[in-house]
Protein backbone atom coordinates (compact mmCIF):
# COMPACT_ATOMS: atom_id res chain seq x y z
CA UNK A 1 0.00 0.00 0.00
CA UNK A 2 2.75 2.40 0.99
CA UNK A 3 4.47 1.55 -2.26
CA UNK A 4 1.37 2.31 -4.27
CA UNK A 5 0.94 5.74 -2.68
CA UNK A 6 4.59 6.52 -3.12
CA UNK A 7 4.49 5.43 -6.75
CA UNK A 8 1.42 7.52 -7.48
CA UNK A 9 3.03 10.55 -5.88
CA UNK A 10 6.15 10.18 -7.98
CA UNK A 11 4.15 9.63 -11.13
CA UNK A 12 2.03 12.73 -10.47
CA UNK A 13 5.08 14.81 -9.72
CA UNK A 14 6.77 13.64 -12.90
CA UNK A 15 3.73 14.22 -15.06
CA UNK A 16 3.03 17.68 -13.72
CA UNK A 17 6.64 18.58 -14.38
CA UNK A 18 6.70 17.65 -18.02
CA UNK A 19 3.42 18.71 -19.58
CA UNK A 20 4.62 21.59 -21.67
CA UNK A 21 1.92 21.17 -24.22
CA UNK A 22 -1.16 19.87 -22.44
CA UNK A 23 -2.55 23.28 -21.48
CA UNK A 24 -2.87 24.15 -25.13
CA UNK A 25 -5.90 22.01 -25.90
CA UNK A 26 -8.50 24.25 -24.26
CA UNK A 27 -7.76 27.48 -26.16
CA UNK A 28 -10.43 29.49 -27.98
CA UNK A 29 -11.52 28.17 -31.35
CA UNK A 30 -10.03 30.92 -33.49
CA UNK A 31 -6.39 30.32 -32.57
CA UNK A 32 -4.38 28.51 -35.19
CA UNK A 33 -2.97 25.17 -34.11
CA UNK A 34 0.35 23.97 -35.51
CA UNK A 35 1.68 20.47 -34.85
CA UNK A 36 5.44 19.96 -34.97
CA UNK A 37 7.35 16.67 -34.96
CA UNK A 38 11.07 16.99 -34.33
CA UNK A 39 13.85 14.56 -35.27
CA UNK A 40 15.28 14.29 -31.76
CA UNK A 41 15.03 16.48 -28.71
CA UNK A 42 18.30 14.94 -27.54
CA UNK A 43 20.12 16.94 -30.18
CA UNK A 44 21.21 20.39 -29.10
CA UNK A 45 20.73 21.97 -32.51
CA UNK A 46 17.20 20.61 -32.85
CA UNK A 47 16.37 21.80 -29.33
CA UNK A 48 17.49 25.28 -30.40
CA UNK A 49 15.28 25.17 -33.50
CA UNK A 50 12.39 23.96 -31.39
CA UNK A 51 12.90 26.67 -28.74
CA UNK A 52 12.79 29.34 -31.43
CA UNK A 53 9.62 27.83 -32.92
CA UNK A 54 8.07 28.01 -29.46
CA UNK A 55 9.05 31.66 -29.08
CA UNK A 56 7.82 32.61 -32.55
CA UNK A 57 4.54 30.76 -32.02
CA UNK A 58 3.95 32.72 -28.83
CA UNK A 59 4.72 35.96 -30.65
CA UNK A 60 2.24 35.17 -33.43
CA UNK A 61 -0.30 33.85 -30.90
CA UNK A 62 -0.38 30.35 -32.38
CA UNK A 63 -0.87 27.11 -30.46
CA UNK A 64 2.18 24.93 -31.07
CA UNK A 65 2.13 21.24 -30.17
CA UNK A 66 5.67 19.86 -30.29
CA UNK A 67 6.40 16.13 -30.19
CA UNK A 68 9.69 14.24 -30.31
CA UNK A 69 10.09 11.54 -32.98
CA UNK A 70 13.15 10.17 -31.17
CA UNK A 71 14.90 9.51 -34.49
CA UNK A 72 12.25 7.01 -35.54
CA UNK A 73 10.66 7.68 -38.93
CA UNK A 74 7.86 5.26 -38.07
CA UNK A 75 7.04 7.20 -34.93
CA UNK A 76 7.16 10.41 -36.92
CA UNK A 77 4.64 9.15 -39.45
CA UNK A 78 2.33 8.10 -36.61
CA UNK A 79 2.69 11.51 -35.01
CA UNK A 80 1.70 13.22 -38.24
CA UNK A 81 -1.27 10.86 -38.52
CA UNK A 82 -2.42 11.93 -35.09
CA UNK A 83 -1.94 15.60 -35.99
CA UNK A 84 -4.19 15.02 -38.99
CA UNK A 85 -6.75 13.29 -36.78
CA UNK A 86 -6.64 16.23 -34.35
CA UNK A 87 -7.33 18.54 -37.29
CA UNK A 88 -4.39 20.89 -36.82
CA UNK A 89 -4.14 23.86 -39.21
CA UNK A 90 -0.56 23.19 -40.27
CA UNK A 91 2.20 20.66 -39.61
CA UNK A 92 5.91 21.29 -39.25
CA UNK A 93 8.11 18.25 -39.68
CA UNK A 94 11.81 17.99 -38.96
CA UNK A 95 12.26 14.74 -40.92
CA UNK A 96 14.08 11.76 -39.43
CA UNK A 97 14.83 10.21 -42.79
CA UNK A 98 14.71 11.17 -46.45
CA UNK A 99 12.65 8.20 -47.62
CA UNK A 100 11.04 6.77 -44.52
CA UNK A 101 9.53 10.08 -43.38
CA UNK A 102 8.03 10.76 -46.82
CA UNK A 103 4.72 8.97 -46.16
CA UNK A 104 3.98 11.62 -43.54
CA UNK A 105 4.22 14.34 -46.19
CA UNK A 106 1.89 12.44 -48.50
CA UNK A 107 -0.65 11.86 -45.72
CA UNK A 108 -0.75 15.54 -44.79
CA UNK A 109 -1.02 16.65 -48.42
CA UNK A 110 -3.87 14.17 -48.96
CA UNK A 111 -5.66 15.60 -45.92
CA UNK A 112 -5.17 19.13 -47.32
CA UNK A 113 -3.13 20.22 -44.35
CA UNK A 114 -0.04 22.25 -45.24
CA UNK A 115 3.17 20.49 -44.13
CA UNK A 116 6.47 22.35 -43.83
CA UNK A 117 9.76 20.47 -43.66
CA UNK A 118 12.33 22.17 -41.50
CA UNK A 119 16.10 21.57 -41.43
CA UNK A 120 16.19 18.48 -43.61
CA UNK A 121 14.41 17.07 -46.61
CA UNK A 122 12.15 14.21 -47.59
CA UNK A 123 11.90 12.71 -51.05
CA UNK A 124 8.18 13.55 -51.15
CA UNK A 125 7.68 17.25 -51.85
CA UNK A 126 6.11 19.13 -48.94
CA UNK A 127 4.10 22.36 -49.03
CA UNK A 128 7.29 24.26 -48.23
CA UNK A 129 10.87 23.68 -47.11
CA UNK A 130 12.73 25.78 -44.56
CA UNK A 131 16.37 24.99 -43.96
CA UNK A 132 19.89 25.12 -45.23
CA UNK A 133 21.70 23.12 -47.89
CA UNK A 134 24.11 20.78 -46.10
CA UNK A 135 26.28 20.44 -49.20
CA UNK A 136 27.03 24.15 -48.94
CA UNK A 137 28.28 23.86 -45.35
CA UNK A 138 30.95 21.36 -46.38
CA UNK A 139 31.91 23.48 -49.40
CA UNK A 140 32.45 26.50 -47.16
CA UNK A 141 34.49 24.49 -44.65
CA UNK A 142 36.69 22.82 -47.26
CA UNK A 143 37.22 26.07 -49.16
CA UNK A 144 38.42 27.63 -45.93
CA UNK A 145 40.85 24.72 -45.41
CA UNK A 146 42.10 24.92 -48.98
CA UNK A 147 42.69 28.63 -48.64
CA UNK A 148 44.47 28.27 -45.29
CA UNK A 149 46.74 25.56 -46.67
CA UNK A 150 47.45 27.47 -49.85
CA UNK A 151 45.83 24.68 -51.87
CA UNK A 152 48.36 22.07 -50.75
CA UNK A 153 48.37 19.62 -47.86
CA UNK A 154 47.18 16.40 -46.27
CA UNK A 155 43.60 16.27 -45.08
CA UNK A 156 41.62 13.91 -42.89
CA UNK A 157 37.83 13.84 -43.04
CA UNK A 158 35.67 12.71 -40.15
CA UNK A 159 32.23 11.60 -41.26
CA UNK A 160 28.93 11.75 -39.45
CA UNK A 161 26.78 8.66 -39.02
CA UNK A 162 27.18 6.83 -42.34
CA UNK A 163 24.16 6.93 -44.62
CA UNK A 164 22.34 9.85 -43.02
CA UNK A 165 21.33 12.73 -45.27
CA UNK A 166 23.60 15.25 -43.52
CA UNK A 167 26.61 12.93 -43.76
CA UNK A 168 26.00 12.18 -47.45
CA UNK A 169 25.52 15.83 -48.37
CA UNK A 170 28.48 17.08 -46.38
CA UNK A 171 30.55 14.37 -47.99
CA UNK A 172 29.43 15.45 -51.47
CA UNK A 173 30.30 19.06 -50.76
CA UNK A 174 33.71 18.15 -49.35
CA UNK A 175 34.59 15.89 -52.29
CA UNK A 176 33.64 18.65 -54.74
CA UNK A 177 36.21 20.98 -53.22
CA UNK A 178 38.80 18.19 -53.02
CA UNK A 179 38.37 17.58 -56.74
CA UNK A 180 38.78 21.26 -57.47
CA UNK A 181 42.02 21.36 -55.46
CA UNK A 182 44.32 18.59 -56.70
CA UNK A 183 47.01 19.75 -54.25
CA UNK A 184 44.88 18.58 -51.33
CA UNK A 185 45.49 14.93 -50.48
CA UNK A 186 42.92 12.92 -48.58
CA UNK A 187 45.00 10.85 -46.15
CA UNK A 188 42.06 8.97 -44.66
CA UNK A 189 38.36 9.27 -43.94
CA UNK A 190 36.42 7.51 -41.24
CA UNK A 191 33.21 7.92 -39.27
CA UNK A 192 33.12 9.45 -35.79
CA UNK A 193 29.33 8.90 -35.63
CA UNK A 194 28.67 12.57 -34.72
CA UNK A 195 30.14 11.79 -31.29
CA UNK A 196 32.80 13.75 -29.40
CA UNK A 197 34.42 10.80 -27.62
CA UNK A 198 34.51 8.77 -30.84
CA UNK A 199 35.96 11.73 -32.74
CA UNK A 200 38.64 12.05 -30.10
CA UNK A 201 39.59 8.37 -30.20
CA UNK A 202 39.64 8.39 -33.99
CA UNK A 203 41.96 11.41 -34.04
CA UNK A 204 44.26 9.79 -31.47
CA UNK A 205 44.51 6.78 -33.73
CA UNK A 206 45.09 8.94 -36.79
CA UNK A 207 47.89 10.75 -34.98
CA UNK A 208 49.51 7.35 -34.41
CA UNK A 209 49.22 6.57 -38.12
CA UNK A 210 50.09 9.88 -39.74
CA UNK A 211 51.61 12.05 -36.98
CA UNK A 212 53.13 15.23 -38.33
CA UNK A 213 51.93 14.49 -41.87
CA UNK A 214 48.47 15.77 -40.92
CA UNK A 215 47.82 19.35 -42.06
CA UNK A 216 44.09 19.67 -41.57
CA UNK A 217 40.97 17.88 -40.33
CA UNK A 218 37.44 18.50 -41.53
CA UNK A 219 34.82 17.08 -39.18
CA UNK A 220 31.19 16.82 -40.30
CA UNK A 221 30.01 18.31 -37.02
CA UNK A 222 31.36 20.34 -34.11
CA UNK A 223 31.08 17.53 -31.58
CA UNK A 224 33.62 15.47 -33.52
CA UNK A 225 35.64 18.59 -34.33
CA UNK A 226 35.93 19.34 -30.61
CA UNK A 227 37.05 15.75 -30.03
CA UNK A 228 39.73 16.16 -32.71
CA UNK A 229 40.93 19.38 -31.08
CA UNK A 230 41.21 17.62 -27.70
CA UNK A 231 43.28 14.80 -29.16
CA UNK A 232 45.54 17.17 -31.11
CA UNK A 233 46.09 19.33 -28.02
CA UNK A 234 47.05 16.28 -25.98
CA UNK A 235 49.58 15.27 -28.64
CA UNK A 236 50.97 18.81 -28.85
CA UNK A 237 49.99 19.08 -32.51
CA UNK A 238 47.15 21.59 -32.39
CA UNK A 239 49.18 24.56 -33.62
CA UNK A 240 50.25 22.54 -36.68
CA UNK A 241 46.85 21.20 -37.71
CA UNK A 242 43.85 23.19 -38.90
CA UNK A 243 40.48 21.91 -37.69
CA UNK A 244 37.14 22.97 -39.16
CA UNK A 245 33.72 21.60 -38.31
CA UNK A 246 30.06 22.42 -38.85
CA UNK A 247 27.15 23.62 -36.63
CA UNK A 248 28.56 26.44 -34.45
CA UNK A 249 27.37 24.93 -31.16
CA UNK A 250 28.21 27.09 -28.09
CA UNK A 251 31.22 24.93 -27.17
CA UNK A 252 32.66 25.28 -30.67
CA UNK A 253 32.17 29.05 -30.65
CA UNK A 254 34.09 29.26 -27.38
CA UNK A 255 36.85 27.13 -28.92
CA UNK A 256 37.01 29.38 -32.00
CA UNK A 257 37.28 32.37 -29.69
CA UNK A 258 40.15 30.70 -27.82
CA UNK A 259 41.76 29.77 -31.13
CA UNK A 260 41.76 26.01 -30.55
CA UNK A 261 39.14 25.32 -33.24
CA UNK A 262 40.06 27.24 -36.38
CA UNK A 263 36.59 27.65 -37.81
CA UNK A 264 33.07 26.38 -37.59
CA UNK A 265 30.13 26.82 -39.94
CA UNK A 266 27.12 28.54 -38.46
CA UNK A 267 23.80 26.95 -39.24
CA UNK A 268 21.11 29.32 -38.14
CA UNK A 269 18.80 27.40 -35.80
CA UNK A 270 16.86 30.54 -34.84
CA UNK A 271 16.15 31.54 -38.43
CA UNK A 272 15.09 28.00 -39.28
CA UNK A 273 12.73 27.85 -36.30
CA UNK A 274 11.11 31.24 -36.77
CA UNK A 275 10.81 30.95 -40.57
CA UNK A 276 9.23 27.52 -40.17
CA UNK A 277 6.49 28.94 -37.95
CA UNK A 278 6.01 31.99 -40.18
CA UNK A 279 5.66 29.82 -43.26
CA UNK A 280 3.31 27.42 -41.50
CA UNK A 281 1.05 30.27 -40.36
CA UNK A 282 1.00 31.86 -43.81
CA UNK A 283 0.17 28.54 -45.43
CA UNK A 284 -2.59 27.85 -42.89
CA UNK A 285 -4.11 31.29 -43.51
CA UNK A 286 -3.78 30.70 -47.26
CA UNK A 287 -1.55 33.76 -47.63
CA UNK A 288 1.33 33.87 -50.09
CA UNK A 289 4.53 32.14 -48.91
CA UNK A 290 7.89 31.00 -50.30
CA UNK A 291 8.00 27.32 -51.23
CA UNK A 292 11.66 27.15 -50.38
CA UNK A 293 13.28 29.25 -47.68
CA UNK A 294 17.03 28.67 -47.78
CA UNK A 295 18.91 30.08 -44.85
CA UNK A 296 22.58 30.61 -45.71
CA UNK A 297 25.45 29.15 -43.72
CA UNK A 298 28.12 31.47 -42.39
CA UNK A 299 31.82 30.85 -41.82
CA UNK A 300 32.81 31.63 -38.23
CA UNK A 301 36.46 32.36 -37.53
CA UNK A 302 38.29 34.16 -34.75
CA UNK A 303 37.69 37.44 -36.60
CA UNK A 304 33.90 37.34 -36.54
CA UNK A 305 33.12 34.94 -33.68
CA UNK A 306 32.00 37.87 -31.50
CA UNK A 307 28.84 38.29 -33.59
CA UNK A 308 27.77 34.73 -32.83
CA UNK A 309 28.53 34.58 -29.11
CA UNK A 310 25.53 35.61 -27.10
Amino acid at each position, binding site marked *: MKNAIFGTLIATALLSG*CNQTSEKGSGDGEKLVVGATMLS*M*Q*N*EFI*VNVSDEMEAKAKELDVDLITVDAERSALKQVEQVESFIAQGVDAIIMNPCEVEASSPAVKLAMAANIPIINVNSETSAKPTAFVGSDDTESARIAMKYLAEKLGGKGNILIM*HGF*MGQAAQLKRDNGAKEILKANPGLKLL*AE*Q*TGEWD*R*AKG*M*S*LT*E*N*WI*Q*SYGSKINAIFAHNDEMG*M*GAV*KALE*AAGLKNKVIVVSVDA*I*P*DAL*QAVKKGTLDATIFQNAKEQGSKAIETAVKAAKKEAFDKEVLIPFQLVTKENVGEFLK
Partner: protein
Amino acid sequence: MPPTQNLRLTKFGQYGIYLAFLILCIVLAFSTPRFFTVSNLLIIGTQVSINALLAFGVTFVIITGGIDLSLGSMVAVTGVVAATFAHPDTYPLAVPLLAGLGAGLLFGAFNGLVITKSKVPPFIVTLGTMTIGRGLALILSKGRPISNLSDSFNFIGGGNIFGIPFPIIILIVAFIVCAVILNKTVLGRYMYAVGGNEPAARASGIRVGNVKMWVYTICGILSAMGGILLTARITTGQPNAGAGFELDAIAAAIIGGTSTSGGTGTMTGTLIGALLIGVISNSLDLLNVTSYYQQVVMGVIIIGAVVLDGFGKKD
Protein backbone atom coordinates in the same frame (compact mmCIF):
# COMPACT_ATOMS: atom_id res chain seq x y z
CA MET B 1 27.92 -25.92 -6.35
CA PRO B 2 31.21 -25.29 -4.57
CA PRO B 3 32.79 -22.11 -5.86
CA THR B 4 36.25 -23.69 -6.14
CA GLN B 5 35.08 -25.94 -8.91
CA ASN B 6 33.88 -22.93 -10.90
CA LEU B 7 37.17 -21.18 -10.43
CA ARG B 8 39.15 -24.13 -11.70
CA LEU B 9 36.90 -24.49 -14.70
CA THR B 10 37.21 -20.85 -15.75
CA LYS B 11 40.95 -20.75 -15.24
CA PHE B 12 41.23 -23.67 -17.60
CA GLY B 13 38.99 -22.13 -20.23
CA GLN B 14 40.77 -18.80 -20.12
CA TYR B 15 43.70 -19.92 -22.27
CA GLY B 16 41.67 -19.59 -25.45
CA ILE B 17 41.03 -15.92 -25.08
CA TYR B 18 44.63 -15.16 -24.10
CA LEU B 19 45.77 -17.02 -27.17
CA ALA B 20 43.34 -15.14 -29.41
CA PHE B 21 44.49 -11.83 -27.96
CA LEU B 22 48.14 -12.74 -28.37
CA ILE B 23 47.70 -13.86 -31.98
CA LEU B 24 45.82 -10.67 -32.82
CA CYS B 25 48.56 -8.50 -31.30
CA ILE B 26 51.31 -10.35 -33.15
CA VAL B 27 49.46 -10.06 -36.46
CA LEU B 28 48.93 -6.35 -35.88
CA ALA B 29 52.52 -5.73 -34.85
CA PHE B 30 53.57 -7.12 -38.22
CA SER B 31 50.88 -5.44 -40.32
CA THR B 32 51.43 -1.91 -39.08
CA PRO B 33 54.60 -0.51 -37.50
CA ARG B 34 52.45 2.05 -35.70
CA PHE B 35 50.74 -0.53 -33.54
CA PHE B 36 53.46 -1.65 -31.17
CA THR B 37 54.68 1.74 -29.99
CA VAL B 38 54.54 3.03 -26.43
CA SER B 39 52.39 6.00 -27.38
CA ASN B 40 49.90 3.83 -29.25
CA LEU B 41 49.68 1.32 -26.40
CA LEU B 42 49.02 4.15 -23.94
CA ILE B 43 46.28 5.43 -26.23
CA ILE B 44 44.69 2.00 -26.42
CA GLY B 45 44.82 1.82 -22.61
CA THR B 46 43.09 5.19 -22.34
CA GLN B 47 40.46 4.32 -24.93
CA VAL B 48 39.76 1.00 -23.26
CA SER B 49 39.48 2.38 -19.72
CA ILE B 50 35.81 3.43 -19.78
CA ASN B 51 34.55 0.23 -21.35
CA ALA B 52 36.71 -1.82 -18.99
CA LEU B 53 35.25 -0.13 -15.90
CA LEU B 54 31.72 -0.86 -17.09
CA ALA B 55 32.73 -4.40 -18.05
CA PHE B 56 34.14 -5.04 -14.54
CA GLY B 57 30.82 -3.92 -13.08
CA VAL B 58 28.71 -6.04 -15.36
CA THR B 59 31.00 -9.04 -14.78
CA PHE B 60 29.92 -9.10 -11.12
CA VAL B 61 26.30 -8.88 -12.22
CA ILE B 62 26.57 -11.60 -14.86
CA ILE B 63 28.41 -13.93 -12.46
CA THR B 64 25.36 -13.80 -10.17
CA GLY B 65 23.22 -14.75 -13.16
CA GLY B 66 21.89 -11.23 -13.75
CA ILE B 67 22.34 -8.60 -16.44
CA ASP B 68 22.51 -4.81 -16.42
CA LEU B 69 21.38 -2.93 -19.51
CA SER B 70 21.34 0.46 -17.79
CA LEU B 71 25.14 0.91 -17.86
CA GLY B 72 25.14 3.41 -20.73
CA SER B 73 22.37 5.47 -19.17
CA MET B 74 24.17 5.45 -15.83
CA VAL B 75 27.23 6.81 -17.62
CA ALA B 76 25.10 9.68 -18.95
CA VAL B 77 23.35 10.46 -15.63
CA THR B 78 26.49 10.34 -13.53
CA GLY B 79 28.46 12.32 -16.11
CA VAL B 80 25.80 15.04 -16.21
CA VAL B 81 25.56 15.14 -12.41
CA ALA B 82 29.33 15.40 -12.02
CA ALA B 83 29.57 18.08 -14.74
CA THR B 84 26.89 20.15 -13.02
CA PHE B 85 29.19 20.58 -10.01
CA ALA B 86 32.46 20.74 -11.92
CA HIS B 87 32.44 24.31 -13.24
CA PRO B 88 35.64 26.21 -12.41
CA ASP B 89 35.75 28.19 -9.16
CA THR B 90 32.53 26.77 -7.77
CA TYR B 91 33.05 23.64 -5.69
CA PRO B 92 36.20 21.75 -4.68
CA LEU B 93 37.00 18.74 -6.86
CA ALA B 94 35.62 16.30 -4.29
CA VAL B 95 32.07 17.60 -4.80
CA PRO B 96 31.57 16.65 -8.47
CA LEU B 97 33.33 13.33 -7.87
CA LEU B 98 31.23 12.40 -4.85
CA ALA B 99 28.04 13.65 -6.54
CA GLY B 100 28.73 11.53 -9.62
CA LEU B 101 29.72 8.45 -7.65
CA GLY B 102 26.75 8.97 -5.32
CA ALA B 103 24.39 9.15 -8.27
CA GLY B 104 25.82 5.89 -9.62
CA LEU B 105 25.54 4.24 -6.21
CA LEU B 106 21.89 5.28 -5.86
CA PHE B 107 21.05 4.24 -9.41
CA GLY B 108 22.72 0.86 -8.96
CA ALA B 109 21.09 0.33 -5.57
CA PHE B 110 17.73 1.18 -7.13
CA ASN B 111 18.32 -1.49 -9.79
CA GLY B 112 19.24 -3.99 -7.08
CA LEU B 113 16.27 -3.08 -4.90
CA VAL B 114 13.71 -3.41 -7.68
CA ILE B 115 15.24 -6.68 -8.88
CA THR B 116 15.34 -8.30 -5.43
CA LYS B 117 11.96 -7.01 -4.21
CA SER B 118 9.87 -7.32 -7.36
CA LYS B 119 11.21 -10.64 -8.70
CA VAL B 120 10.97 -9.13 -12.17
CA PRO B 121 13.87 -10.43 -14.32
CA PRO B 122 16.94 -8.13 -14.33
CA PHE B 123 16.71 -7.87 -18.12
CA ILE B 124 13.31 -6.18 -17.86
CA VAL B 125 14.11 -4.05 -14.81
CA THR B 126 17.33 -2.66 -16.26
CA LEU B 127 15.71 -2.19 -19.65
CA GLY B 128 13.29 0.07 -17.79
CA THR B 129 15.94 1.89 -15.81
CA MET B 130 17.94 2.30 -19.03
CA THR B 131 15.21 4.59 -20.42
CA ILE B 132 14.56 6.18 -17.03
CA GLY B 133 18.25 7.02 -16.76
CA ARG B 134 18.40 8.48 -20.25
CA GLY B 135 15.37 10.62 -19.46
CA LEU B 136 16.85 11.76 -16.14
CA ALA B 137 20.08 12.77 -17.87
CA LEU B 138 18.09 14.86 -20.36
CA ILE B 139 15.95 16.41 -17.61
CA LEU B 140 18.96 17.29 -15.44
CA SER B 141 20.85 18.83 -18.37
CA LYS B 142 17.77 20.31 -20.09
CA GLY B 143 18.85 18.39 -23.19
CA ARG B 144 22.07 20.35 -23.61
CA PRO B 145 25.68 19.40 -23.00
CA ILE B 146 27.19 20.88 -19.85
CA SER B 147 30.57 22.36 -20.68
CA ASN B 148 33.10 24.76 -19.12
CA LEU B 149 34.51 22.32 -16.57
CA SER B 150 37.44 23.00 -14.26
CA ASP B 151 40.98 21.98 -15.23
CA SER B 152 41.37 19.83 -12.14
CA PHE B 153 38.25 17.88 -13.13
CA ASN B 154 39.39 17.50 -16.74
CA PHE B 155 42.74 16.18 -15.48
CA ILE B 156 40.94 12.93 -14.58
CA GLY B 157 40.32 12.26 -18.25
CA GLY B 158 43.27 13.96 -19.91
CA GLY B 159 46.09 14.23 -17.36
CA ASN B 160 49.30 12.22 -16.99
CA ILE B 161 51.21 11.02 -13.95
CA PHE B 162 54.82 10.17 -14.79
CA GLY B 163 53.79 9.91 -18.41
CA ILE B 164 50.97 7.47 -17.72
CA PRO B 165 47.51 8.75 -18.65
CA PHE B 166 45.33 9.08 -15.55
CA PRO B 167 42.49 6.91 -16.98
CA ILE B 168 44.95 3.98 -17.16
CA ILE B 169 45.85 4.44 -13.50
CA ILE B 170 42.15 4.39 -12.59
CA LEU B 171 41.73 1.31 -14.75
CA ILE B 172 44.56 -0.56 -12.99
CA VAL B 173 43.39 0.37 -9.49
CA ALA B 174 39.79 -0.58 -10.33
CA PHE B 175 40.95 -3.87 -11.79
CA ILE B 176 42.91 -4.80 -8.65
CA VAL B 177 40.04 -3.84 -6.33
CA CYS B 178 37.49 -5.76 -8.42
CA ALA B 179 39.70 -8.84 -8.67
CA VAL B 180 40.24 -8.80 -4.89
CA ILE B 181 36.50 -8.47 -4.24
CA LEU B 182 35.76 -11.36 -6.57
CA ASN B 183 38.54 -13.73 -5.50
CA LYS B 184 39.49 -12.90 -1.95
CA THR B 185 36.28 -11.93 -0.19
CA VAL B 186 33.28 -13.83 1.11
CA LEU B 187 31.08 -11.60 -1.02
CA GLY B 188 32.96 -12.73 -4.12
CA ARG B 189 32.48 -16.39 -3.26
CA TYR B 190 28.79 -15.77 -2.61
CA MET B 191 28.48 -14.18 -6.07
CA TYR B 192 29.69 -17.39 -7.73
CA ALA B 193 27.44 -19.42 -5.47
CA VAL B 194 24.33 -17.37 -6.27
CA GLY B 195 25.02 -17.49 -10.01
CA GLY B 196 25.93 -21.17 -9.98
CA ASN B 197 22.84 -22.40 -8.20
CA GLU B 198 20.56 -19.88 -6.57
CA PRO B 199 18.28 -22.28 -4.65
CA ALA B 200 21.31 -24.12 -3.28
CA ALA B 201 22.93 -20.85 -2.27
CA ARG B 202 19.74 -19.83 -0.51
CA ALA B 203 19.50 -23.22 1.19
CA SER B 204 23.04 -22.94 2.46
CA GLY B 205 22.15 -19.73 4.23
CA ILE B 206 23.47 -17.12 1.79
CA ARG B 207 21.33 -13.99 1.73
CA VAL B 208 20.83 -13.94 -2.01
CA GLY B 209 19.01 -10.61 -1.98
CA ASN B 210 21.89 -8.91 -0.21
CA VAL B 211 24.43 -10.32 -2.66
CA LYS B 212 22.36 -9.00 -5.56
CA MET B 213 21.99 -5.59 -3.93
CA TRP B 214 25.77 -5.48 -3.65
CA VAL B 215 26.54 -6.42 -7.25
CA TYR B 216 24.14 -3.91 -8.79
CA THR B 217 25.37 -1.19 -6.45
CA ILE B 218 29.01 -1.95 -7.27
CA CYS B 219 28.08 -1.95 -10.93
CA GLY B 220 26.47 1.48 -10.45
CA ILE B 221 29.61 2.86 -8.81
CA LEU B 222 31.84 1.51 -11.58
CA SER B 223 29.49 2.98 -14.19
CA ALA B 224 29.76 6.30 -12.39
CA MET B 225 33.54 6.05 -12.60
CA GLY B 226 33.14 5.45 -16.33
CA GLY B 227 30.74 8.39 -16.58
CA ILE B 228 33.11 10.75 -14.75
CA LEU B 229 36.04 9.55 -16.84
CA LEU B 230 34.13 10.09 -20.08
CA THR B 231 32.95 13.54 -18.99
CA ALA B 232 36.47 14.57 -18.04
CA ARG B 233 37.90 13.13 -21.25
CA ILE B 234 35.57 15.03 -23.58
CA THR B 235 35.34 17.95 -21.09
CA THR B 236 31.54 18.05 -21.25
CA GLY B 237 28.68 16.29 -19.54
CA GLN B 238 26.53 15.00 -22.36
CA PRO B 239 23.02 13.66 -21.76
CA ASN B 240 23.21 11.43 -24.83
CA ALA B 241 26.64 10.03 -23.98
CA GLY B 242 27.13 6.35 -23.38
CA ALA B 243 24.35 5.08 -25.64
CA GLY B 244 25.19 1.49 -26.54
CA PHE B 245 28.04 1.26 -24.02
CA GLU B 246 26.24 -1.57 -22.25
CA LEU B 247 26.66 -3.79 -25.29
CA ASP B 248 30.42 -3.25 -25.50
CA ALA B 249 30.76 -3.90 -21.77
CA ILE B 250 28.69 -7.07 -21.87
CA ALA B 251 30.64 -8.16 -24.95
CA ALA B 252 33.94 -7.66 -23.12
CA ALA B 253 32.75 -9.76 -20.18
CA ILE B 254 31.46 -12.55 -22.39
CA ILE B 255 34.52 -12.56 -24.66
CA GLY B 256 36.53 -12.82 -21.46
CA GLY B 257 34.80 -16.07 -20.53
CA THR B 258 31.98 -14.91 -18.28
CA SER B 259 29.02 -17.18 -18.89
CA THR B 260 25.63 -15.52 -19.35
CA SER B 261 24.08 -18.39 -17.40
CA GLY B 262 25.97 -17.25 -14.31
CA GLY B 263 28.46 -18.84 -11.94
CA THR B 264 31.60 -18.38 -14.03
CA GLY B 265 33.84 -15.51 -14.98
CA THR B 266 37.02 -13.71 -13.97
CA MET B 267 38.16 -10.10 -13.89
CA THR B 268 41.33 -10.92 -15.85
CA GLY B 269 39.21 -12.46 -18.59
CA THR B 270 37.02 -9.37 -18.72
CA LEU B 271 40.08 -7.11 -18.87
CA ILE B 272 41.41 -9.11 -21.82
CA GLY B 273 37.98 -8.95 -23.45
CA ALA B 274 37.93 -5.17 -23.13
CA LEU B 275 41.50 -4.91 -24.42
CA LEU B 276 40.63 -7.13 -27.38
CA ILE B 277 37.75 -4.83 -28.40
CA GLY B 278 39.94 -1.76 -27.88
CA VAL B 279 42.85 -3.16 -29.87
CA ILE B 280 40.58 -4.11 -32.75
CA SER B 281 38.98 -0.69 -33.02
CA ASN B 282 42.36 1.07 -32.69
CA SER B 283 44.05 -1.08 -35.30
CA LEU B 284 41.20 -0.84 -37.80
CA ASP B 285 41.71 2.93 -37.69
CA LEU B 286 45.49 2.53 -38.01
CA LEU B 287 45.02 0.24 -41.01
CA ASN B 288 42.47 2.72 -42.39
CA VAL B 289 39.80 0.08 -42.89
CA THR B 290 36.64 1.65 -44.35
CA SER B 291 33.91 2.42 -41.80
CA TYR B 292 31.47 0.00 -43.36
CA TYR B 293 33.93 -2.89 -43.17
CA GLN B 294 35.07 -1.99 -39.65
CA GLN B 295 31.78 -3.17 -38.19
CA VAL B 296 31.89 -6.44 -40.10
CA VAL B 297 35.51 -7.11 -39.15
CA MET B 298 34.80 -6.28 -35.49
CA GLY B 299 31.95 -8.81 -35.40
CA VAL B 300 33.98 -11.53 -37.12
CA ILE B 301 36.94 -11.11 -34.76
CA ILE B 302 34.69 -11.15 -31.67
CA ILE B 303 32.99 -14.36 -32.75
CA GLY B 304 36.37 -15.83 -33.75
CA ALA B 305 37.84 -15.03 -30.34
CA VAL B 306 34.97 -16.68 -28.50
CA VAL B 307 35.14 -19.75 -30.75
CA LEU B 308 38.84 -20.06 -30.01
CA ASP B 309 38.01 -19.67 -26.33
CA GLY B 310 35.52 -22.54 -26.64
CA PHE B 311 38.24 -24.81 -28.07
CA GLY B 312 40.37 -23.99 -25.05
CA LYS B 313 37.61 -25.12 -22.74
CA LYS B 314 37.10 -28.47 -24.43
CA ASP B 315 40.70 -29.61 -23.99
